[in-house]
């Protein structure tokens, strides 16, 4: 009984303090004549966004729509990044256990090198590489018919739509911007190093007896890997994978530095144009929290299924 009393008092105190902070903030904002509230979401944004990932957007649209475009861009790079990093991470993790010393050495060097340099530096490197090394659109390289590489990114044909040089740039076809490509490459190559280590550790954790039993049954190396090693290893691999996925999503907010209009980049612009930093930061936190919780839930579900399969 007494315990409950204490707890209630503690909760009341915390709520009271929170209320005090909020009230104080609102007061101070009003005293300094800084606008507050989420009303700005419905106002015209007034700025353009470089890539909209298929969503229709123009400067006359609202802040809300601008933020949605940013969120879409975050999703695009995060989903592709997770897929890419997982595939590459598994290959490299297996490579590190290869019987071929060359493969072992190369994968080890890759992991050590990329894991020990800051991701931001890597992003600048990939971005500079793409923008500096490739020619201008008028002198674009064309390795395959309809595919054009330039410092404006990669243009490639889509069914019924072929890229053509028009004025300043190509139009038509599909397009990967240098910002997107650099961010995706950076995230995939960086996160894959961590995933590779997780995969390697997972495989090493499979008891030797399992392998010997498989060999005794006359299984070849590949089927052994598929049917014996991986199912065991996955149970060790999946839980830490989730935190790598979360890291990738959070790291994608480094996009601002190389001009990819992800959610944080668009939200920052909105903060600057409206001055509503508190609301903007609250939105950023809410979005990342939601993504993180959803991703964790998904991975937990995955893990549960894996365990249930026994």
């Amino acid at each position, binding site marked *: 009984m007494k315990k409950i009393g204490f707890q209630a008092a503690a909760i009341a105190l915390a709520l009271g303090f929170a209320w005090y902070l909020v009230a104080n903030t609102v007061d101070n904002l009003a005293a300094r004549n800084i606008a507050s509230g989420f009303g700005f979401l419905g106002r015209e944004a007034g700025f353009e966004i470089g890539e909209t990932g298929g969503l229709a957007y123009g400067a006359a649209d609202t802040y809300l729509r601008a933020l949605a475009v940013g969120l879409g861009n975050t999703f695009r790079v995060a989903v592709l990044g997770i897929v890419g990093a997982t595939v590459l991470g598994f290959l490299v993790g297996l490579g590190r256990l290869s019987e071929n010393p060359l493969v072992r050495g190369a994968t080890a060097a890759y992991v050590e090198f990329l894991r020990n340099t800051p991701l931001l530096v890597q992003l600048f490197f990939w971005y500079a590489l793409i923008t500096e090394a490739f020619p201008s659109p008028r002198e674009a390289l064309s390795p395959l018919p309809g595919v054009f590489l330039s410092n404006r990114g990669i243009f490639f044909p889509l069914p019924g739509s072929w890229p053509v040089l028009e004025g300043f740039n190509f139009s038509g076809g599909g397009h990967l911007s240098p910002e997107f490509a650099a961010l995706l490459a950076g995230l995939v190559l960086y996160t894959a190093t961590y995933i590779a280590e997780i995969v390697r550790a997972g495989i090493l954790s499979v008891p030797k007896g399992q392998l010997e039993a498989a060999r005794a049954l006359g299984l070849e190396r590949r089927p052994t890997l598929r049917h014996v090693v991986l199912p065991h290893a996955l149970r060790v691999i999946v839980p830490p994978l989730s935190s790598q996925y979360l890291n990738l999503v959070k790291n994608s907010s480094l996009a601002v530095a190389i*001009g990819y209009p992800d959610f944080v980049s668009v939200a920052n612009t909105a903060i600057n144009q409206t001055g509503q930093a508190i609301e903007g930061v609250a939105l950023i936190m809410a979005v990342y929290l939601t993504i993180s919780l959803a991703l964790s839930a998904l991975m937990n579900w995955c893990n549960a299924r894996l365990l249930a399969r026994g």
Partner: protein
Amino acid sequence: MKRLFLLALAFCSLAHAQQSTLDAVRARGTVACGTNTGLAGFSQPDSKGVWRGIDVDVCRAVAAAVFGDASKVRYVPATTQQRFTALQSGEVDLLSRNTTWSFSRDAGLGFNFTGVNFYDGQGFMVWKKLNVKSAKQLNGATICVQPGTTTELNLADYFRANRMTFKPVVIDKLEEVLNAYFAGRCDVFTTDMSGLVSVRGSRAPNAAEHVILPEIISKEPLGPLVRHGDDRWFDIVKWSLYAMIEAEELGLTSRNIDEQARTSKDPSVQRFVGASGDLGKMLGLDNRWAFNIVKQVGNYGESFEANLKPLGFERGQNALWKDGGLMYSPPIR
């Protein structure tokens, strides 16, 4: 990001009993001045690490007025994105950083602009090899721009009004956005004309490869600003800038002010240098506040000569009103 949290903290802080900015500055012993991260002629550290430029001179003028010592400034470089939170959160006492005085910043962000130290307008810089002669030919261009600027908004307006489209590449740091432009990622870089001239003169690997188009698409009155809510500090910053402009009009310079203070019988000069009247006291400052500004920093014209002339700037709109420009100080009396 860190700044934003600082901001949140500052707003939530229990300190309702607010200390005046002047007291805080005096207690600290320096004026915290938000500057550009590096824009030649406006605010940039020279090879010895000494900050120079016409925006820097406003910071120094305020320090000269408050402390009688123009060197008592702590410079806080801020990008286009960081500058407003730096001021709102109290990290800096004033922002003197080629910032456009606009309605929504003045009325909505909780700031007061204290005047204009450079009248400017937005322009476009283009790769010469593209053979573009007018901004009207920029349909479809890729344009590098910094976020959180009036530039970004005017750009969208201009293309909408002229029924043209463009692709923005938006990068926070000036250094990085310029790298992208100079690498050829963008056809065009856009900002205030002053920024274009400064950047072409001081950052372009080869200035001759770039042309600045003739169109000026906006009004960009650049000036210092302070937080709402401290009128005394607002007055100090405002009149520190006006003192520089008024000094030019009175013909007072860093070189002749000692002598003028001793010999001039002109009542405006006597008031200005603090030999008569008590203007300084009305600001809560030493009566020689304006004398110290001119003696240590110089008048507006001197600052312009020293910082902007070498980069090829003409006085133009920034000449004194009596010479056909827009620079005009209300009477200091």
